[in-house]
């Protein structure tokens, strides 16, 4: 019986070695937990499925950006903390390209009226170009200076979008606008219409209706999340290929010792620029997919917070591992991003809190006389704030205790083929007996 037990353990451990298994297991636990939370909160089936859908949407988007950051930091050692800026460039350019040329009614500013696929390509290219503009002069800087440059760039983008001067401008005689601080309305058709207008989609709507009791709106949202998962898979595949190749090998070498890599004949600047532009373009794509279906966007969405989230996700998963990046965004969303709010709801399900004191002082003063209830109430009232505190503490904790994250042992192969021993391995026995 004990041998049986160890047997299964060994078998489970070997199974765990596969990335797909890790992803399925961890995501299985996440989804199951949230389904149970939904049940506990008394959600109906469509509510539960909708909760999971929202999770999927967030994980997919954050996963895309984390993968792109992993390409920068995990593989190449490029310290980018201007992520929000590249995402903003992608989304804003796409929106300005897609908005109709006629600025009628509440639509505010005119756009170029291009079809959505073209607009998306435009946004991605623009984000890549922004990366190029940053990379060419800045990549030779020390990592910390480079980081400061990228965050300054991101803030320049955000403040530029917010500024009244770009609120409405004309470029080569074409009227455009960022909308300034008030934001930009996405008054184009649903960008997913290419899919929603397909014949099969109506049967998808019927299916979700009979399965989960979804209405057409919810069905569309579900389909959107599924498309995001497909895109995430594509990006994972792309970056996995990139890293498992001679190109990826040079990236790894740059991370380890750039000067030595140069001495070995690699024009490292070339590689760094390419990989930086690629990562920025992917960040732009993620920025587009993140919010192009909303009614509008404001520059507030691209505060440095976003960059901070992605870094936490990367560090949870472990820099240098693509699987880790996806897992990291899953855990970030489930535990740090969505978790606290659901936790609060769960607690409130059980305990009913009275009115909370409206200041910190009002909550602390009763503690002196032994009454902690007001403090607890205040804490729950301010849970959203504490959630951010928690994120900061989590990052500090990870850097102290587990800077390599879940999977950041830097063990991913940097070659296009598995690096196995040669088949005629016994030839080595003839030379130096000490070698085996």
């Amino acid at each position, binding site marked *: 019986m004990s041998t049986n037990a160890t047997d299964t353990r060994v078998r489970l451990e070997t199974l765990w070695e596969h990335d797909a298994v890790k992803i399925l297991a961890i995501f299985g636990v996440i989804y199951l937990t949230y389904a149970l939370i939904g049940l506990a909160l008394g959600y109906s089936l469509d509510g539960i499925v909708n909760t999971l859908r929202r999770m999927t949407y967030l994980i997919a988007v954050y996963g895309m950006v984390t993968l792109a950051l992993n390409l920068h930091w995990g593989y190449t050692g490029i310290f980018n*903390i201007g992520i929000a800026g590249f995402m903003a460039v992608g989304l804003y350019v796409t929106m300005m390209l897609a908005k109709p040329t006629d600025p009628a009614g509440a639509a505010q500013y005119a756009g170029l009226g291009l079809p959505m696929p073209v607009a998306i390509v435009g946004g991605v290219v623009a984000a890549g170009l922004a990366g190029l503009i940053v990379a060419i002069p800045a990549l030779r800087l020390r990592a910390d200076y480079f980081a400061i440059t990228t965050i300054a760039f991101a803030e*320049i983008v955000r403040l530029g979008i917010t500024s009244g001067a770009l609120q409405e401008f004309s470029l080569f005689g074409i009227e455009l606008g960022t909308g300034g601080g008030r934001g930009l309305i996405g008054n184009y058709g649903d960008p997913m219409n290419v899919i929603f207008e397909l014949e099969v989609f109506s049967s998808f709507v019927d299916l979700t209706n009979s399965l989960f009791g979804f209405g057409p709106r919810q069905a569309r949202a579900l389909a959107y999340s599924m498309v995001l998962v497909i895109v995430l898979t594509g990006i994972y595949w792309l970056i996995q290929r990139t890293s498992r190749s001679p190109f990826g090998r040079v990236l790894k070498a740059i991370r380890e010792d750039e000067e030595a890599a140069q001495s070995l004949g690699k024009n490292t600047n070339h590689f760094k620029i390419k990989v930086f532009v690629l990562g920025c373009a992917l960040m732009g794509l993620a920025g587009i997919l993140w919010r192009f279906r909303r009614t509008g966007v404001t520059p507030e969405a691209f505060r440095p917070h976003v960059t901070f989230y992605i870094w936490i996700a990367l560090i949870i998963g472990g820099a240098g591992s693509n699987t880790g990046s996806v897992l990291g965004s899953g855990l970030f969303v489930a535990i740090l991003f969505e978790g606290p709010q659901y936790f609060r709801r769960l607690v409130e399900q059980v305990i009913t809190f009275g009115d909370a004191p409206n200041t910190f002082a009002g909550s602390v003063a009763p503690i002196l006389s032994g009454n902690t209830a007001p403090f607890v109430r205040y804490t729950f009232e301010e849970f959203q704030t504490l959630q951010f505190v928690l994120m900061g503490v989590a990052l500090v904790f990870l850097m102290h205790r587990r800077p390599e994250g879940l999977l950041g042992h830097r063990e991913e192969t940097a070659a296009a083929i598995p690096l196995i021993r040669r088949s005629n391995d016994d030839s080595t026995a003839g030379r130096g007996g000490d070698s085996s």
Partner: protein
Amino acid sequence: MTTEQLLTLVVGLGAFLLLGDLFIGILNGTYSISRVARYAVEGTLYGLIIGLAGIGLSMTYSILNFANFAHGDYVTSGAFFGWGVTYLVAGWGTANFGHLVLVGPQRGVGGSQLEITITSTPVAIMAGLLVAGVGTALFVYLIDRIAYKPMRGSGGIPLLITSIGVAFALRYLIVFVYSNRTRGTTSGDLPSLDLLLVDGWVSVDAHDATLIIAAIALMLGVHLMLQRTKLGKAMRAMSDNRDLALVTGIPTEQIIRWTWMIGGGLAGSAGYLMVLWTGTIDWQFGWLLLLLIFAAVILGGIGSIYGAIFGGLTIGISMHLSMVWLPGGDFTTITAFLIMILVLMIKPAGLFGGKTTA
């Protein structure tokens, strides 16, 4: 010619053209001379704050060898600590303790009701400034113990990432304790010195003057400390060369502690003075100041306190003067960031670079 030289030439030419344009514009009346003077004064005051806060950042950057992204939130913390005390002293008895010490988290008694100004409540402001400095020094030391000390051996990058976490946690802890309300802290009635400058008035009020005097006094204090005291000499030695510092006999850990405390104290004081000057306080003004402080420190050269002061003034004045050409104030921050990026391109060591803390 290297790229750097070419860039330097372009930037130099650009600066020359702008200054020339400013000069001619003032002479021929395109730009109002009093307006330009007002920008210069405001820029100088803003620059003093940035420079004062920058000294601490510069010191920790060179001695601990990492860019501390939590420095801006030290500025905010100091302002809240100090203003809590100012409210208490100025408003004792007019409102409850909690409301005062938390700088009025909810509507109610505030700076204008308490009639806080340097002339009407000088003691409250002095006490507040003192607490802002000392309180932040101790607070920053505590943060070092919790967050950074366990990582002393790590490189600059892990520490930088950690400091981003510290910044985030600290900022929202401030919201948790002090609320996210933006509030006025001073009353508007202030004596001021008004000068007629050809086509308009330039005025310096009592709070501007307080800021100038306090900032210069603190800067002078740091200067004397670094030049005259054994600790100061050890700090300079350590920022130049860690091993050499050991020779002076002062343990490294002790120098690090004092570096944090002095840097934190200056950051807190800068925050306090900034609130006195602007008359408002909110939970993220220090964070928004952070990149400007970085710009100043990089411009001046990391490790040089005179560089930080010079950088702060340059950044502050350029930001305000940029409004001569780019009116509306939307581009002041962008101007500062662009200057920083240009400095990094042309002279990453900064203008006072290479020469550390001396």
